[in-house]
């Protein structure tokens, strides 16, 4: 299993009791493919729909039905569409159970940077700041490192997405939970040792006496 699939599968386990979930563009989108049996969530697309699903087959694309990236989607029976204020009212008003977002950096205090690299990448924050500030539960799904540098850092050097502490960070090496005391190492990826995680991490981690492996079949 590749690293992205591993991350997606692990994140999917967090959606068991969720009713409304928003998946960011990119890696987070993979999560929808790996929901455990019995999961019964609605996926929101922040451009204005609850109940998005992939286009069921080629040729069924509809010009008025797209995801937040502008790509064609389908909709489940019982879907609902609405304007951008309602869409973000759902997000900002605490009606969104879980948001899964990609990340550039997460720091020791559990704060996320994921929207800008000054001077190099200026995409705009889109809905990311609203999602992190407003969702009931924020899960960051990302690679542990990029270009040999850890994305788990002592303090974010990139502009923050929000000062709100995220709830869980799932990487290809570990599951980390931000707490008042710092980042707690909750799980390691199958075949990865605690020492390997620590070596790949740019800040201190709190390591409990036992750290289970992710409950994912390899």
């Amino acid at each position, binding site marked *: 299993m590749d690293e992205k699939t591993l991350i997606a599968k692990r994140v999917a386990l967090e959606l068991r009791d969720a009713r409304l979930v928003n998946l960011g563009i990119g890696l987070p989108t993979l999560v929808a493919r790996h929901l455990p049996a019995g999961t019964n969530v609605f996926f929101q697309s922040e451009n*204005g729909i609850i109940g998005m699903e992939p286009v069921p087959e080629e040729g069924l694309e509809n010009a008025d039905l797209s995801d937040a990236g502008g790509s064609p989607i389908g909709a489940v029976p019982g879907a609902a569409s609405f304007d951008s204020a309602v869409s973000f009212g759902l997000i900002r008003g605490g009606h969104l159970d879980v948001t899964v977002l990609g990340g550039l950096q997460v720091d020791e205090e559990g704060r996320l940077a994921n929207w800008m690299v000054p001077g190099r990448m200026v995409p705009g924050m889109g809905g990311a700041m609203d999602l992190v500030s407003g969702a009931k539960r924020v899960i960051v799904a990302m690679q542990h490192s990029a270009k040999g540098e850890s994305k788990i850092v002592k303090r974010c050097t990139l502009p923050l997405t929000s000062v709100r502490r995220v709830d869980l960070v799932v990487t290809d090496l570990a599951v980390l939970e931000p707490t008042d005391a710092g980042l707690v190492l909750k799980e390691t990826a199958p075949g990865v040792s605690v020492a390997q995680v620590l070596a790949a991490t740019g800040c201190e981690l709190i390591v409990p006496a036992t750290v289970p492996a992710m409950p994912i079949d390899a």
Partner: protein
Amino acid sequence: MSKVRKLEDAVAAIPDGAVLMIGGFMGVGTPPRLIDELIRQNKRGLTVIANDTARPTVGIGKLVAGRHVARVIASHIGTNPETQRQMIAGETEVELVPQGTLAERVRAGGFGLGGILTPTGVGTVVADGKRTVELDGRTFLLETPLKADFALILAKRADYYGNLEYALTARNFNPLMAMAAETVIVEAEDIVPVGMIPPDHVVTPNVLVDVLVAKEARHG
């Protein structure tokens, strides 16, 4: 009494330098004929308030690529390298606004609010230069209303009076912007007799709409 106008006349009323709100999300819900006519009439120095600038060949992206835009207020320009280039080169002024805040600022303009308080952006670069308000121990940003001279709206159906319906995710910012501009110009896929849209299905009431333009039959 009819609000239906020729495309050319509808767009001719928009002067260079006008402030436009344009509906759409990555081009979906953006009125294509109105965009193309703005380009054909070579409007200059426009301010565009919109969710994004799509791609250089799509929707609002075409306005940016054709250098019709002096200023953009949007939540996302990441899919349009030309907007980013113009921003970094200092050719086009870009204000980036979180999407939910953008929706609320447009709504506040249309609904007569003096502003709204939001936790989104507190402690980030978005807060630079903005007033904060403390309430019950929480900190909020005070975000101010946005208004425009013109709103360019895409509707699925309009009746002769200008009552509007939208389709699926093509709705997005359109109904909010139809409240927030001095003059509202609507491109409608279908224009139908009064009474064909039941009151409960009207999303934008007719009194908000000034001009209707028919969308040509789509190819295919």
